[in-house]
């Protein structure tokens, strides 16, 4: 059981972001995706997150070839993959409505309309919503409107929102690059706790220390090519590719 891209290519008009990238994420592991800006980290995450169809290659979620599957199958499989972005991207409503969203879209339209009616709808917050918020210490803010949250709190809610519908794979695009150290630690701990279960996580980051702190494996992406992929310790202590060594040295000085 894994989330896997095989020889995928992504092009935007004349620009080729990558030609043939292959990566596999197993359940229960954290893969850090490191590389300089413009290396294609976000594009690779969006491909893994099934946002756009790659120009070539296959994307598999638990063996299913996503872009060869039926619309229905694809939706089912897509719903086992979640994503947290650099920006919280919260909807302009309450914390609770945000965190409930993933559960809500999985319900039938009938139930969703019923829930809009105060008398017959179910008004107590579902347990997964409370649990997901507890994971990032935001359970007391459940009825708070999102505009009164700080940036760090908003990002913690964004994390809870992605956890509430019980994804199998979670993708993070620079999730802590706008955060202070305390909120960064909360998010990192939550990622580790989440993957201790069955979740496979990919964390795109330009912070190599973060990769060292949380990742089981690291993949280095340079100019749209996975230069090296391997266990965190090994990649940082004895990189096989000279470009990896150069990247690590450059970054560590910096």
């Amino acid at each position, binding site marked *: 059981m894994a989330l896997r891209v095989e020889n995928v290519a992504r092009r935007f008009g004349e620009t080729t972001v990558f030609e043939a990238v292959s990566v596999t994420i197993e359940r229960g592991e954290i893969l850090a995706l490191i590389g300089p800006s413009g290396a294609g980290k976000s594009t690779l995450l969006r491909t893994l997150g099934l*946002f756009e169809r790659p120009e070539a290659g296959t994307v598999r979620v638990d063996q299913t070839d996503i872009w060869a599957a039926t619309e229905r199958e694809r939706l089912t499989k897509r719903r086992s993959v*979640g*994503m947290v972005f650099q920006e919280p*991207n919260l*909807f*302009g409503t309450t914390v609770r409505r945000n965190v409930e969203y993933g559960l809500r*879209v999985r319900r039938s339209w009938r139930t969703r309309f019923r829930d809009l009616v105060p008398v017959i709808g179910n008004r107590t917050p579902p347990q997964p919503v409370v649990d997901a918020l507890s994971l990032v210490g935001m359970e007391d803010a459940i009825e708070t409107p999102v505009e009164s949250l700080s940036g760090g709190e908003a990002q913690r809610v964004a994390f809870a*929102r992605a956890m509430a519908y019980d994804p199998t794979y979670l993708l993070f695009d620079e999730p802590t690059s706008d955060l202070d150290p305390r909120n960064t630690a909360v998010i990192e701990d939550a990622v580790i706790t989440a993957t201790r279960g069955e979740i496979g996580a990919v964390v795109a980051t330009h912070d190599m220390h973060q990769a060292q702190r949380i990742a089981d494996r690291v993949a280095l992406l340079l100019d749209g090519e996975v230069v090296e992929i391997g266990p965190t310790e090994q990649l940082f202590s004895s990189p096989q590719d000279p470009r990896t060594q150069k990247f690590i040295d450059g970054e560590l000085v910096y």
Partner: protein
Amino acid sequence: MITALLSDGYIWSIIRVSLYVSLTAIALSAVLSLPIALIVGVTEFRGKRLLNAVITTGMGFPSVVVGLLVLFAVSNQGPLGPLNLVFTPEAMILSQIVLAAPVITGISLSAIDSVDGGIRDAAYAMGGTRLDVAVVTIKEAKYGIATGILAGFGRAISEVGSVLIVGGNIVSDGSSYTRTLTTAIQLEARQGQFETALVLGAVLLVLVLSVNAIVIRLGSGGGRSR
């Protein structure tokens, strides 16, 4: 004097016709405009700027010209001739749709356009279908969309040119058939019935002002929608 006028069924029938025509036109315009605004707002395609320009031009389209075109369309030789709509409230609804739809589309479009793509990505990432993502986009743009609908209503209820041409300003048995507030004011003033014209003018002003007050309130609410 004013109480006498207000107790007169004539005035009320005019208000009723005005509201019936404009509210129906706005409801239909909204149903027509919102999907267009949504599709144009969230997709990128060749000619999007041109389409935007066309919609913006439509927002300022002269109402007499619209009236003329709708009159041609509903006249016996026109494509809608068989429906026998000349000088009916329904013909006025048609012309107000043509006038209001670009206003609603244009304002909603810019509201939808300004919804951050990240919001749509988030909805999609949480398992939303294309329809779910569209609903989220509309919710995020709701103040702008409401402003567009109210502005469209303001344009429809206060225009005089097209309803005069396609409606004909008809009264039968002392009760309005196709006479609206605007066409009535125009006629009463020309006949020297200034009291009646003034009362009708006041009613129209109150209607338009209330709508504008709502627009302004929504506008200030839109600032804290995100």
